[in-house]
């Protein structure tokens, strides 16, 4: 197994693990999304429903190497969104539960969550670059 595959599968596993509790407990996750104070009321439930499934499918695609370029792009995009949301709330001094890996209100402290997400963002960026290079070599340019 190449290092590229190991990184891709590791990122996929992170996304699958992060999604499960949230996909099962949509109501609790919706409360966390509301606490982030970033979305209008009517969008909260839809985001809380779709986001965990998007994470789950993205993770599975990365693990099983399907739709990999799109999945790597989504993983990178999601990590940017999560970092922005956490960063904004840290700046505003809102100490809300992260909702990153579970719907438990006792999440990790803000700075630790930010540091951990920065690590995952770096991993997502690396995987996306590797996949873009691989897709380019596979794509027949006209």
């Amino acid at each position: 197994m190449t290092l590229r595959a190991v990184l891709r599968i590791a990122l996929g596993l992170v996304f699958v693990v992060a999604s499960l509790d949230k996909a099962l407990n949509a109501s609790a996750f919706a409360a966390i999304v509301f606490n982030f104070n970033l979305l209008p009321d009517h969008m909260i439930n839809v985001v809380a429903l779709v986001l965990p499934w998007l994470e789950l499918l993205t993770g599975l695609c990365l693990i099983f190497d399907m739709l990999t370029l799109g999945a790597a792009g989504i993983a990178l995009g999601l990590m940017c969104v999560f970092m922005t949301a956490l960063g904004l709330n840290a700046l505003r001094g809102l100490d809300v539960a992260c909702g990153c890996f579970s719907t438990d209100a006792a999440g990790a402290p803000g700075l630790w969550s930010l540091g951990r997400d920065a690590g995952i963002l770096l991993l997502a960026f690396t995987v996306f670059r590797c996949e873009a290079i691989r897709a380019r070599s596979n794509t027949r340019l006209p």
Partner: protein
Amino acid sequence: MRPRPLLKLGLREAALLIFLSVVLSLGINALRTDGIPLSENWTDKTLRALGDKALDLSRAKALHATAGILFVDAREAESYAAGHVAGAVNLPYDPFNPQSEQRILSLPKDRWLVLYCSSISCPLAKQMAEALTFNGYDKVLIMAEGFEGWRKAGGPTGEAK
């Protein structure tokens, strides 16, 4: 030189993944017995959940002028220093820190307490109210709209020196 086919491929795959997530999540939610509605008024829901402890801004402003009411700011010290309800005391609350649990018990039991945090969506004031009620405090109110609402409503504010 020519990234177009690559970009197109990536976007097509991403769009397919997003489409599948939407269909799966909404479909499964519709089938689940504990599914949630697609749209909800969360501000309303939060106020309702507070029941008779909820204090709206106009009542809060009227009470603020009354002697004997103590406003308690549950946010962190930095937020308090940047601006707070005039005359409020700062007791940063963290429900997972036993020291902070102990600290709030220094509040007087015989005065009406008005708890607030940053905005309608912050949980701290509500959590502090639950802890106080659990410890026998029965004169506890929550200004649900928080400091954000107070400032918008033009309530008197103070800044730390």
